[in-house]
């Protein structure tokens, strides 16, 4: 851009700039007073609250999930925030570091949402129904138990061991569920076993 600018005009505008800046610096700068509020808007306003239980361990902390959109009104709900429920007797609003980060657990791309199977020779998991999955698991367990169950040891003492299958049970259970799981698995003679009841 070419602009005709005389020495005088340049000095005049530069002087005006300095004067304006100086006036601002002296504290007459009320011009930008109409600034937006510095406090961020509270992000849970108009969210839908849902009570739930933290899925990590059998302490079973109470949580509240906050979502945008209400499923009960037929809307699509998007999970926005999760925090501890102060009305819950177990945790009274507090959470552990994992619980406090539950939002990313719920939204994790690698989260397992339904039963999957990787068939022999395949290189990928495929989705199957719960019925298919449970039937297959029960069949394989039964076959293995029938084949490898040890009723008596070499000394003839009754031991009722089943050591060829292991059972890793959920942690997202209450103590009662964990108790029942323990009894079922142990009564089948299974030794290789871990679940929340151990904690």
């Amino acid at each position: 851009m070419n602009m005709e600018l005389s020495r005088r005009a340049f000095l005049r505008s530069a002087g005006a700039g300095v004067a304006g800046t100086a006036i601002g610096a002296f504290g007459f700068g009320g011009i930008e007073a109409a600034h937006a509020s510095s406090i961020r808007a509270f992000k849970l306003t108009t969210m839908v609250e849902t009570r739930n239980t933290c899925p990590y361990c059998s302490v079973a902390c109470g949580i509240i999930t906050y979502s945008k959109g209400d499923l009960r009104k037929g809307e699509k709900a998007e999970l926005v925030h999760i925090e501890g429920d102060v009305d819950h007797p177990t945790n009274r609003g507090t959470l552990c570091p994992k619980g406090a980060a539950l939002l990313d657990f719920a939204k994790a791309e690698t989260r397992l949402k339904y039963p999957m199977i990787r068939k022999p020779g395949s290189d990928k998991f495929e989705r199957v129904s719960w019925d298919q999955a449970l039937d297959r698991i029960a069949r394989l367990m039964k076959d293995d138990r029938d084949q490898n169950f040890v009723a008596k040891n070499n000394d003839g003492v009754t031991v009722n061991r089943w050591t060829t299958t292991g059972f890793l049970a959920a942690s997202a259970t209450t103590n009662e569920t964990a108790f029942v799981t323990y009894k079922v698995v142990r009564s089948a003679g299974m030794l290789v076993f871990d679940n929340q009841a151990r904690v």
Partner: protein
Amino acid sequence: MAITTNPPVAPTPASYGDKDLLRRSASGPQHPDRQLTPVAKLIDVSKCIGCKACQSACLEWNNLREEVGVNTGVYENPHDLTPASWTLMRFTEWVNPETDNLEWLIRKDGCMHCADPGCLKACPAPGAIVQYTNGIVDFDRNHCIGCGYCVKGCPFNIPRISKVDHKAYKCSLCSDRVAVGQGPACAKACPTQAIVFGTKEEMKQHADKRIADLKSRGFKNAGLYDPPGVGGTHVMYVLHHNDKPSLYAGLPDNPRISPLVEAWKGMTKYAGLALIGLTAAAGFVHHLVAGPNKVTEHDEEEAARFAEGKATDGRVA
């Protein structure tokens, strides 16, 4: 003191706002109509188990995410405060020479919300740092110019400049939650209630009880860290060794705003403004007395001759 209500979802007007500013960076004195009850967060270092629930809750509430880092064999994760991690557990292993016991000192680091905030005093951007009459010191990134003066001004080395948008970030004491009657996300999550939130008065009383308890357990130097060098803070610690705060990952023993910041933003600033004012006044007086510089007829003749290529002294232009 313990937070007893869940966050509201009904529209709730913020209980304070721009009318409650005690200080606003680079903006001259503020005139708040009312004084809000000062609030404070109390961190009881002796109750902290270092679980980092506060770090998780902070990231979640403030929609921040930290990149997956590298383990260098220490417990700090991430290694330092970052533009996304506004709070960080700092771990110190210390052998107490009196008892020969190994003590694991865990301190939740983050903004202390000083009553006399060095960051705000150093900040040259109007409104980028504000202090409310309840004590919260907040950064407003819409006004931040990313100069980094707040980092130099902070006695606790807290603000961090983002490499993405070149703006400064630090803990806001969850000013949005406090405005609707909630405590900060970290205080709510804390499973041992080592972090509690309430009015500053309540927090001091709570601290007294904790200190009495610690003293009865043999920590004779237990005390409240509310450093007077920065006018007191709105984030306070209960320390078992309050005589040696620097044990706790370099917590300053006597934090003060850097004298450089004080000088630059204090005397130097007013001297500079006075100089500008005097220069302007001198120019104006000169204008009145001597008047504008006029072009005489002689100058015009000289100029015309010069333009033709012959200066009066015979030089060729």
